[in-house]
């Protein structure tokens, strides 16, 4: 029951992201969608992924979005085209049709092969042993992010700010 409610809330928040014209409200809706997604992850016993989703996606990414929106406060939000909103109902019907077809096909491909792909292994074993190379990738990515931000906001010597 909690799963169905969480998924319904998740989809509602995603629709809110699309429908809200104010970017700040969309960012808050994204945070709420992340919270409901972390509830879903908890329900499927993916506890560590749920904690990551809650702290990083619902916390950090929302802070980044809100900061960016406030730094670009006078941006051209108003000139956003109204065409997407007008076409949204038709697009939604089309997306739902494609979605149902894809779900039926993928479920047929996925479900009969229900044999275990490592049921007995723990997250610790998978993360630190089987997929240990991923950790190097993650460390490199974090460094890429840090140096990327440093490069973006670097101020040349002798200049107080970007022009």
């Amino acid at each position, binding site marked *: 029951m909690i*799963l169905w409610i969480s998924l319904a809330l*998740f*989809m509602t928040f*995603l629709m809110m*992201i*699309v429908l809200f014209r104010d*970017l700040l409200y969309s960012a808050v809706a*994204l945070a709420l969608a*992340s919270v409901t*997604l972390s509830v*879903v*992850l908890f329900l*499927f016993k*993916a506890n*560590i992924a749920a904690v*990551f*989703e809650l702290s*990083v*996606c619902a916390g950090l*990414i929302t802070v*980044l*979005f809100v*900061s*960016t*929106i406030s*730094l*670009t406060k006078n*941006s*051209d939000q108003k000139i*956003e*085209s109204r*065409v997407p909103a007008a*076409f949204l109902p038709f697009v939604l019907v089309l*997306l739902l049709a494609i979605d*149902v077809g*894809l*779900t039926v096909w*993928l*479920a047929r491909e*996925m*479900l009969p*092969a229900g*044999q*275990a*792909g*490592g049921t007995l*292994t*723990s*997250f610790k074993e*998978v*993360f630190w042993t*089987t997929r240990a190379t*991923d950790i190097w990738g*993650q460390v490199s*990515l*974090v460094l890429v*992010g840090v140096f990327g*931000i440093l490069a*973006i*906001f670097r101020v040349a010597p002798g200049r107080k700010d970007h022009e």
Partner: protein
Amino acid sequence: MNEEIKMLLFCGLLAFMLGLYLLLSHRNLIRIILGVEVLSKGITLILLAAGQARGAIPFIQSLVVTFIIVETVLAAVMLGLIVLVYKTHGSLDIRLLSKLKG
């Protein structure tokens, strides 16, 4: 159990398509990054459905954690770039960013 997996797949695919719609239909750079985020939420749900169907939740958890890190770094760098674009161009409309055209 099968119904749960089907529902996860349905919601994941719908979220993926909504993200794609946001990416394709809007011109504001921040909204485009929001589209990427929505798309990634869909992918997380689809990964979870696959893990549940195969009984490999620990394996999928490790993939989801890696994916969240990728998503965060992408968002941080892209939002930094957006601030820089706003400082130089005074606009976030993607149509006005034509200075890189060859």
